[in-house]
């Protein structure tokens, strides 16, 4: 079942593309940044362990 006629139609989201993609994008970015920061924090803790 494919409801999008084209890639353009998918990206434009019936004219609401800006709002829809910014919502999903911002959510993804926030979660990714949190993970990266946590991995970095964990690594610095592990580094300290070895010295």
């Amino acid at each position, binding site marked *: *079942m*494919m*409801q*999008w006629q084209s890639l353009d139609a*998918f990206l434009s*989201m*019936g*004219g*609401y593309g800006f*709002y*829809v993609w*910014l*919502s*999903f994008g*911002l*959510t993804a970015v*926030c*979660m990714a940044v*949190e*993970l990266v920061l*946590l*991995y970095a*924090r*964990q690594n610095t*803790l592990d580094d*300290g362990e070895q010295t």
Partner: protein
Amino acid sequence: MRINWYRFSSPQTFYPLAGRLAPWFLGVAGLLAVVGLYISFFVAPTDFQQGEAYRIIFVHVPAAWMSMFIYLVMAGWSAVGLALNARLSFMMAQALAPTGAMFTFLALVTGSLWGKPMWGTWWVWDARLTSELILLFLYIGHMALQSAMEDTRRADRAGAMFALVSAINVPIIYFSVKWWNTLHQGASISLTKAPAMAHAMLLGMLVMALAFWAYTIGVALMRVRCVIKDREREAEWIDEAREIDEASEVEQ
């Protein structure tokens, strides 16, 4: 086989367990997110009233649910911590706060991004939006309170009391759409239409919510490890400082 659960309430034994569990929860979160996104964009049909803009709910509603749920879990850990004087419980509450704040922020921003095209405004001071904004301040307040106190025992107790008392805001948020005449729509989002449509939308929301849930557990486990390590360091550092102090006193 009997597992001694009590054993895991010690930070030292929980530390490696959390490290082993975290990647699994994050992996499950990733898989659920892929399925959830597929449903959100390719299975769930266009809403006849809101067009494609309604798809924002697939991140907005799970984020808003998590923002409230995490605060209740924090209050729960705080209660356990205060009742049993369990250090790890306080640490769990502390580890959850930043993620809760992030989901609150996301719920507010994605709600705003939905409100602009649908209501014609980014923000209104109605009960639902205002109480959710207060929740963000409560998360920030909890983190500030926790980090403001030098003595971790006092900080834990103060943070726990704060979380317990302010958790009253969560039911206020949840029921705000019933108690007050708000612009924000009620709990059921156009689910009264054709059943197939309602099911796909509801399923998308639930799968995304489960993804966020697994993500939160994974991230909280990672952060609680950092908190455990940080506190261990601090304790060692204090011990060393005390030894140096005592040594210098002996010299004098």
